[in-house]
């Protein structure tokens, strides 16, 4: 377990986020825009729904023969002159990369946006070992300057205003900087261009890896992924084992749905297929290519409750549509991966105990499953997680007692039927405008953040009985 200990409870983190007016506005604008762009992209793509089904099917089929596909991937990467490493844990992954950095005498590492390297907290480890890590995706560069973590999988700095970005740049460059996205982007281009040309080590994740050909695939819009894999003399790609796809034909199915789901583009600007180090006759490219295959909790889920979460493409579509994410943003989740899929990935990486509170940070409305390009049934797995959390007695005891009592009650039909009239009597002092807004004693914890629907004037069972009397 490599995640930092979260000291403030989720309730407080959420409360804080809800109080941040700018964050709220930024989240609302960003997620609404992404939702619209995604809908448009699929709207003019009649084959979209069928391809989502295909993509899902391919992910499942790949998992069913994961060992064979990985064997083929490893053999093909090695055949093309690359090196493959195996990391069971985040610690091991960091050690492998630090070892490569030491052996090659690297002083500076340029990175293209990668959730896998966020997950293993690579930057801190590199810095501690004397290798300067430089994030080169503009959003990641901004949050690195701010010493923060990404708040969205594909738009890591959506919580920052242009004014805040200008302040960060001014502090870094020790000069005045205009709060204009065009100007700020130009400055980042110039600053980072020097770093690309100077760095010894290029570090990336992998959106996919093609087993048949030993190809690592990177999808970016800015072109930093291409820089990082072309200019430094060593390239290290870190990927979760679930990212392998069998063939180029399969790859094209995923490329058809990935960008549409993420940003509403038909394709991202750059899709880069990398097959090992520079060929002898070529002018450019790294002398060494390393692929780090990462487990870190994934393999245990092949037969676990979170198996389907291994389909995830990291597109971020489920974040944009989630009513909880849209209110509290990514940081309040407290871990590397935010949003509905983030809760599942957090449980995968850190065990179910880590999502004791987070597993409830969902209304189970199902919008995430609808938006997912591979139709991952996120709500089903959240319910499974809640069950695990309960089974291991992580829920507060009054809640457990109340639900135990309720579970017993609904299995006693005569008593349960009494509940209707009894409930109507007991709730009388608390019903205001058809809602129960406040309850006394510890029941008040329930109504502090939500209303309790009152028992109906006539319950379904009472109405059903009446209907049966009318029509024998």
């Amino acid at each position, binding site marked *: 377990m490599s995640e930092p200990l979260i000291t403030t409870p989720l309730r407080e983190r959420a409360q804080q986020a809800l109080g941040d007016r700018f964050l709220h506005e*930024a989240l609302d604008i960003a997620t609404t825009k992404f939702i619209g762009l995604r809908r448009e992209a699929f709207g003019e793509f009649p084959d979209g729904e069928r391809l989502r089904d295909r993509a899902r099917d*391919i992910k499942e089929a790949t998992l069913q023969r994961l060992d064979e596909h990985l064997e083929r991937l490893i053999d093909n990467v090695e055949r093309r002159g690359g090196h493959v490493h195996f990391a069971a844990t985040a610690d091991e992954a960091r050690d492998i990369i630090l070892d490569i950095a030491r052996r090659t005498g690297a002083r500076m590492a340029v990175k293209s946006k990668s959730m896998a390297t966020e997950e293993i907290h690579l930057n801190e480890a590199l810095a501690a070992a004397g290798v300067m890590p430089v994030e080169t995706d503009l*959003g990641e560069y901004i949050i690195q300057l701010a010493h923060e973590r990404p708040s969205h999988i594909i738009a890591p700095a959506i919580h920052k205003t242009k004014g805040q970005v200008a302040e960060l740049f001014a502090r870094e460059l020790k000069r005045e900087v205009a709060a204009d996205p065009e100007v700020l982007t130009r400055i980042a281009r110039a600053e980072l261009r020097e770093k690309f040309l100077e760095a010894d080590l290029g570090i990336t994740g992998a959106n996919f890896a093609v087993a*048949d050909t030993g190809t690592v695939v990177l999808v970016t819009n800015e072109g930093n992924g291409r820089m990082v894999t072309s200019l430094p003399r060593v390239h290290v790609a870190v990927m979760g084992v679930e990212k392998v796809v069998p*063939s180029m034909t399969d790859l*094209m199915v995923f490329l058809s749905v990935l960008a549409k789901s993420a940003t509403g583009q038909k394709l991202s600007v*750059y899709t880069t297929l990398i*097959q090992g180090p520079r060929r002898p006759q070529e002018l450019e*490219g790294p002398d060494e290519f390393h692929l780090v295959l990462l487990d870190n909790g994934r393999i245990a889920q092949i037969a676990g409750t979170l198996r389907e979460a291994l389909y995830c493409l990291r597109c971020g579509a489920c974040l944009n549509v989630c009513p909880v994410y849209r209110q509290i943003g990514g940081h309040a989740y407290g871990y590397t991966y935010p949003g509905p899929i983030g809760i599942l990935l957090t449980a995968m990486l850190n065990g179910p105990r880590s999502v004791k509170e987070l597993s409830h940070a969902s209304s189970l409305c199902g919008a995430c499953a609808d938006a997912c390009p591979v139709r991952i049934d996120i709500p089903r797995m959240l319910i499974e997680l809640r069950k695990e959390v309960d089974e291991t007695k992580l829920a507060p005891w009054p809640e457990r007692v109340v639900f135990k009592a309720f579970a017993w009650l609904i299995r006693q039909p005569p008593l349960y039927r009494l509940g209707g009239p009894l409930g109507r009597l007991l709730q009388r002092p608390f019903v205001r405008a058809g809602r129960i807004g406040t309850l006394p004693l510890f029941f008040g914890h329930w109504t502090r953040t939500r209303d309790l629907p009152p028992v109906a004037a006539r319950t379904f069972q009472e109405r059903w009985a009446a209907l049966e009397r009318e029509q024998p």
Partner: protein
Amino acid sequence: MTTRAAFLGRIRDEMAKTRGLFPATTAERPARPRERLEVLRRELIERWPQSLERFRAEFERVGGVFHRARPGDVPALLARICRERDARSVVTWDAAELGIDAGPVLASAGVDVHAMPRAVPSAPERQRLREVIAHADVGVTGVDLAIAETGTLVMRSAAGRPRSTSLLPPCHVALFERGALVETLAQVGIALEAWHDGAAADTEGAVINFITGPSRTADIELTLTRGVHGPKEVHAIFVDHD
């Protein structure tokens, strides 16, 4: 450190525990990809005008600039693009890879032209050429595939086709012919399968790039900005042999 055997062993142990999985299949690869690609090419050549029109529309939608020129007019068009941008230095793929030698026309227009050699370069020469590309104002490349559905240019790196010609200069100009046009991403899959079919694949370059318009970001307040790391401008010249 975890070994390959131990790592894959753990995966097999977990796979053995799975129960009641749904039947699922991967995408069907063409059995003989090269023959399949030849058949596809013959089909596509019949419909190239429609493909070109679709490509133009999609390419412009992602912010690309489309041109159409006869082979003899291409050098003058390149010279005009350079002049309009005050370009001093142009880097191009090897003339044989481009199919066109624009060197003399560009040189007479006062532009330094650097054609990238096909010969295997020495380490110091590689360093020098990298500097040349990094300081060029315009990069001129060929194209292996032009995808109509998405407005995408696909190019393979190789000797005489350095990958950063389309990346480091602020303006990228790509030349393509009707034979490069494909309609869909699925058709690109057939080409990729064919390129990787057989031993010849290993002698190719190490990178295949898909380029869909100029480099862009929306990371600051979702404001679309072009040219963050890669080119700010991408031009596609359709070389018309009719």
